[in-house]
């Protein structure tokens, strides 16, 4: 009920604004040059410890205060940051890394000691870092510092994709020995000025930044949880940047001359996970029936209001190692119906788990259940609490909506598809063949070999894993038209929420 009221009211309010002649809004410029960015936050829970960050705002702040060894290009391939260069030995278990000349905010140089200390801290279970698993394979006893700017990281098994771990969220480099983060020192483009959990964070330009001093003299993170409030704050000139705006707001903001929308196309995978390790979806015919019975184009047009593109049952469209040559899955109702009949599952009823954790889940569930009804299946949308949704669906049900922001493709395959993925394998897919292909790919020094093996592994997973990727939704942020120097970029990539090159005009 509340949601209905909210949506209706939001549309009415924003509609009135869009229809209004442009009210002159004096606040749009920033006389003090301070760049104000609005993000949802988590109140008292917030911390400046970059290694425990799990929210987008934590990542954005960590990016401003700290640096990582590598960043991600838009296709999630690693690009050098603090690491100037790196190379593996022939076995892919010993990595030599050379650091560039960079300084922390207190003028100490960034050294190999700091890197090793940071990674040890990330891998330590006591830290509770979401990036811990990326460093689980590191032999810290054997890894060592070679010189102030050179270090050697040793792995227990071959991994020619290891550098992509150095760009993951929560792998920032902190000065060796750091334990407290109440007034953090990093090597990022901005220095710490003030912070209050649940309140504003103010950072100041770091003139000694290795990539050159940032443009904005100051950067302020303003906590605004409600999407409508972020949109209103942006339109009225109170902030210059609004993180995560819905497709509806994006349409309205795109028409307003006070604002611009930066849409990263295909930013987020939208999928339904069918658990293939239990009935009824342990019957491959049924999985194939559902995959053939879904109209992806209709889902993109209706659910995403066209702000996205149809999926092909694989994560990572457009990312490095994504197999480009696969024909798209087309809807085939006849085939789907006959497969349902063959499986003896006509009229089969099951719960389709969904929640408000993603703005598109609930409407997708409704449309999907209609489409599946046409092939003789009765999928009933079942709404769960959004805060714990993604951990709930690991344990419950047989079909659930899920989504994933961009991350390096091999990391996705390892964390979601491999036998060792445990509960993070949402579909319960297990295949010795897939695991073998994946391990061979990770252990292949040649990029062409790796690429081919990853493609083979993905083809296998596409047909067997039970992950129905119906689309990729755009990722929208909105900025004031007075701000330059920002471009659309997928979340988690280097250029996403990167404020050091922003120009407040």
């Amino acid at each position, binding site marked *: 009920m*509340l949601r209905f*009221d*909210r949506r*209706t*009211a*939001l549309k*009415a*309010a*924003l509609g*009135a*604004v869009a229809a*209004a002649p442009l*009210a002159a*809004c*004096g606040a749009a410029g920033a006389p003090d040059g301070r760049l*104000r960015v*609005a993000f949802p936050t*988590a*109140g*008292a*829970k917030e*911390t400046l410890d970059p290694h*425990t960050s*799990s929210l987008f705002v934590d990542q954005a702040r960590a990016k401003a205060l700290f640096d990582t060894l590598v960043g991600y290009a838009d296709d999630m391939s690693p690009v050098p940051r603090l690491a100037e260069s790196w190379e593996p030995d022939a076995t892919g278990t010993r990595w030599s890394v050379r650091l560039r000349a960079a300084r922390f905010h207190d003028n100490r140089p960034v050294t190999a000691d700091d890197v090793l200390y940071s990674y040890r801290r990330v891998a330590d*279970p*006591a830290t*509770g870092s*979401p990036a*811990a*698993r990326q460093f689980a394979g590191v032999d810290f006893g054997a890894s060592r510092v070679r010189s102030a700017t050179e270090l050697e990281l040793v792995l227990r098994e071959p991994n020619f994709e290891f550098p992509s771990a150095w760009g993951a969220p929560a792998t920032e480099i902190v000065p060796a020995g750091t334990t407290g983060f109440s007034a953090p020192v990093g090597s990022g483009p901005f220095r710490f000025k003030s912070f*209050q*959990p*649940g*309140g*504003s964070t103010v950072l100041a330009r770091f003139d000694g930044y290795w990539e050159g001093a940032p443009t904005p003299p100051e950067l*302020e993170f*303003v*906590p*605004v*949880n*409600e999407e*409508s*409030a972020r949109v*209103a*704050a942006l*339109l*009225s000139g*109170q*902030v210059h940047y609004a993180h995560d705006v819905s497709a509806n707001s994006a349409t309205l903001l795109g028409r307003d001359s006070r604002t611009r929308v930066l849409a990263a196309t295909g930013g987020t995978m939208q999928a339904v996970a069918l658990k293939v390790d239990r009935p009824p979806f342990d019957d491959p015919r049924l999985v194939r029936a559902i995959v053939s019975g879904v109209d992806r184009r209709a889902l993109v047009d209706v659910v995403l209001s066209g702000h996205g593109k149809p999926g092909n049952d694989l994560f990572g469209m457009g990312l490095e190692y994504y197999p480009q040559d696969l024909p798209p899955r087309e809807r085939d109702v006849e085939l789907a119906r006959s497969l349902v009949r063959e499986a003896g599952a006509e009229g089969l009823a099951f719960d389709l788990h969904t929640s408000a954790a993603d703005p598109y889940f609930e409407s997708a569930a409704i449309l999907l259940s209609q489409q599946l009804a046409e092939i003789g299946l009765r999928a009933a949308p079942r709404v*769960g*609490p959004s*805060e*714990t949704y*993604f*951990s*709930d669906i690991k344990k419950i049900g047989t079909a659930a909506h899920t989504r994933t922001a961009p991350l390096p493709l091999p990391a996705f395959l390892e*964390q979601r598809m491999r036998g060792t993925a*445990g*509960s*993070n394998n949402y579909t319960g897919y297990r295949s010795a063949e897939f695991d073998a292909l994946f391990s061979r790919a990770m252990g292949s020094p040649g990029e062409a070999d790796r690429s081919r093996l990853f493609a083979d592994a993905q083809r296998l997973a596409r047909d067997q894993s039970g992950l129905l990727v119906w689309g990729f939704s755009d990722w929208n942020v909105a900025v004031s038209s007075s701000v330059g120097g920002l471009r659309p970029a997928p979340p988690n990539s280097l250029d996403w929420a990167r404020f050091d090159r922003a120009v407040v005009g």
Partner: protein
Amino acid sequence: MALAALRRAATAALQLVAVSVAVFALTSLLPGDTAVVVLGEHATEEQLAALRERMHLDRPPLERFAAWAGGLLHGDLGRSSLTGLPVTEDIARGFTTTALLAVVALVVVVPLAVAIGVAGGLRRGSLPDRVLNSAVLLLNSVPEFALALLLVGLFALHLAWLPATAAGASGWELAAQPALLVLPVSVLVGKQLCGLARQVRIGVAEADDAEYATHVRFHGLPERTVVLRHVLPNAIGPAVQQLARVVDGLLGGVVVVEAVFALPGMGSGFVNAVMARDLPSVQAYALVFAAVTIAVNMLADIAAKRLVPQREVMA
């Protein structure tokens, strides 16, 4: 009289205990725990287990409740299972913001409601009465969230007279920039005006019709004196209890208003604590909100009791 007040206070204390048990039981039923929320969707079972141990979430709920209740008896509201910091620090941070909102709203709503109630009560069925009555009823029937968005759309975005949100300002910063308070307070007032104004109107109407009012009028007292000295005091009894409802309503309203206007007060803190499944914090917030509500209602009951016999004597 004193005994009755004491008995009322004992009831209030029991209510407080009941609330804390109920909140604990209900929040325990929520799926997921703090560790799940903190580590997010990619966490492994081992990571979750390690964090649960560190946050003492692996202890049985009754043991945690006992520890929490024990601390409470010593005046200790406990520590956040998330940050490990005393919950009171977190609550204190949001307190000024919320208290400021609620107090300013109360200061606006009471005289406004009395004025509307008296004006309507004395001239029942007149055009001003009907207009005012419909207006407060209309305000009351619009959901807070919608009212807030409409006000923002009109006064902040279209006319650009007022700031659209408070965007991170809190506590005394708000007092220093009153413009930031106008829209949030308007929403709270708009929502709470109706009940109080209508209660005052009914009270005034009843007192106005009563024999003693006719009696003093008959004796030639000026209308001003009749209303201020005789009608209004007798209309206030039931209105005081309605005032307690207004305070309850304001406390509920701040949750929505703080969200829409990005104000980091107790309402936002409470919502965040629930979302993070931070049980000690949720408990503490619920307890503080409950304590205020129970105390205000208790005071209203006692005050109303004192005010009512006056009418009986007069009549």
